[in-house]
């Protein structure tokens, strides 16, 4: 797995994890069935509250043969490692992500010979999507879905603007897949009318496996005319290296340091079955019709790592949630300048709940923060605003604040009929015959679980004096082997 160490890519990140946090990277060398067994391992790790990066070395591909590719999952499952990727801390990683992505860096074009992703080039009948170790993770899934694919489009008409987003690919045939492009996504809204009018297909690239900062950079929330390759450079802290594609050359540049690049064309009208599959809300998403991608070429590293996302676990939570935390923080800061931090907990799939921590200086700020946060993303549904003494990374402490600092008659904000997502099982559909993304609404709201602003009095929270807490180390009172043996409570 050697690579040029100066370039930020997946290899360099894994090397850094191995050096700094070796206990957070594990390899499974025994044979593992891609059909459910791999997911069982990841779900059991989740339940044990352990979130290492896992590399499965011995998997059976969908073609029935042993996969030539190892599979890496849980890249984002540890918040600590996400923080390392963005040179931040566990507490501030969402806010630092936001700051980094606002410092865009123009991509650096490199020759194909200097691009690791060009070490293997397959075209025409040599292309076979079934050669990838695509898992069948949950019991009702009827097909193989590539989850770690950053689908990218380019607009060459007004400058050169790349749009990127994680979108699923359901493998239909060796050279054909459906792509989870939905209404409202930049990749699709920008081009749908144009490709349907001209009858020309839409060039599209799906890249898999990169430094986690680059992957999270693909999830930034910027206007449609902002070049997202430059934003990814901001997230990385250095320009994204790109290289000409096999199909369109310099007109469509692809990430040079990705593990795998899939190049394809979306025909204007064709739709295919985007099969029943798991989604981030931990339910199944029904089969839908989605655009088809006809694959033209696949390029990859000689020893490419297939990156998969563990749906239904912390992996997908952090990937979607951390980029959103910074956006919420920025929006709330305009309404409540003393906002301290934002966390999207796994208990809300890192999409539905947001915990907003503020230093309260005047009455009404809790409600202001709720309203400001709700407008940031259609998936956000419940906002809990707490004081700065509450640890927003601890669900129990946030709920304690709700229990002791909120009142249902005065501190609740409910906004009916806001735009929702199809993936909220409680959303109600409009009477529109077309059940598009925009057709779903739901009531949203928040709880102001803050204390009254000074100088209003409130109860005083119990605490052991800080200096005593600092000095008291459990190992000085209980033998460490005995301490280790005490079971974790539920």
């Amino acid at each position, binding site marked *: 797995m050697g690579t040029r160490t100066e370039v930020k890519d997946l290899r360099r990140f894994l090397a850094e994890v191995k050096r700094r946090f070796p206990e957070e990277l594990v390899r499974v060398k025994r044979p593992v069935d891609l059909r459910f067994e791999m997911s069982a391992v990841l779900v059991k790790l989740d339940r044990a509250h352990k979130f290492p990066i896992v590399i499965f070395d011995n998997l059976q591909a969908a073609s029935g043969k042993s996969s030539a590719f190892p599979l890496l999952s849980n890249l984002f499952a540890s918040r600590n490692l996400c923080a390392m990727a963005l040179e931040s801390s566990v507490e501030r990683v969402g806010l630092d992500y936001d700051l980094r992505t606002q410092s865009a860096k123009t991509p650096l074009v490199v020759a194909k010979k200097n691009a690791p992703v060009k070490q293997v080039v397959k075209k025409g009948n040599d292309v076979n999507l079934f050669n990838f170790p695509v898992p069948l993770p949950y019991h*009702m*899934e*009827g*097909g193989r879905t590539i989850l770690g694919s950053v689908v990218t489009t380019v607009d060459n008409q007004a400058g050169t603007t790349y749009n990127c987003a994680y979108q699923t690919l359901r493998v239909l045939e060796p050279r054909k897949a459906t792509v989870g492009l939905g209404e409202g996504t930049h990749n699709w809204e920008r081009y749908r009318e144009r490709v349907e009018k001209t009858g020309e297909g839409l060039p599209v690239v799906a890249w898999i496996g990169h430094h986690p900062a680059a992957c999270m950079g693909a999830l930034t929330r910027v206007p449609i005319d902002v070049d997202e390759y430059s934003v990814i450079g901001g997230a990385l802290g250095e320009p994204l290296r790109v290289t000409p594609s096999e199909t369109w050359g310099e007109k469509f540049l692809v990430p040079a340091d990705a593990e795998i690049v899939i190049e394809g064309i979306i025909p204007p009208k064709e739709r295919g*079955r985007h*099969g*029943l599959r798991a989604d981030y809300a931990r*339910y*199944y*998403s*029904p*089969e*839908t*019709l989605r655009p088809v991608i006809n694959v033209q070429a696949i390029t990859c590293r000689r020893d490419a790592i297939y990156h998969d996302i563990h749906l239904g676990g912390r992996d997908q939570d952090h990937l979607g949630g951390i980029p959103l935390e910074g956006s919420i923080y920025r929006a709330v800061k305009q309404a409540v300048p003393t906002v301290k931090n934002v966390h999207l907990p796994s208990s809300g799939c890192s999409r539905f709940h947001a915990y907003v921590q503020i230093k309260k200086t005047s009455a009404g700020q809790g409600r202001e923060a709720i309203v400001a946060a709700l407008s940031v993303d259609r998936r956000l549904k419940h906002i809990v605003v707490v004081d700065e003494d509450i640890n927003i990374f601890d669900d129990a402490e946030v709920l304690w604040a709700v229990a002791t600092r909120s009142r249902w008659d005065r501190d609740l904000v409910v906004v009916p009929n806001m735009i929702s997502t*199809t*993936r909220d*099982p*409680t*959303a*109600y*559909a409009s*009477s529109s*015959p077309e*059940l598009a993304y925009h057709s*779903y609404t739901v009531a949203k709201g928040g709880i102001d679980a803050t204390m009254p602003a000074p100088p209003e009095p409130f109860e005083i929270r119990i605490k052991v004096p800080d200096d005593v807490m600092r000095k008291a180390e459990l190992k000085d009172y209980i033998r460490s082997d005995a301490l280790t043996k005490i079971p974790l409570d539920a």
Partner: protein
Amino acid sequence: MASSMRVVCPGCDQEFLVSPQFERLKIAAKCPFCEKEFPIEQSKKIVRPSPILLVK
């Protein structure tokens, strides 16, 4: 759930989810368990969600 309806496969009796879009466009359901494709009206059971309001 507003975005899904439940059907039962006439081939293997397994229950699974179908988008209402498929019924509206008269697209066959495809069973994820046995891969049988069948018109939705041939399902052994169909449970449709309320299109306007989820009752709970």
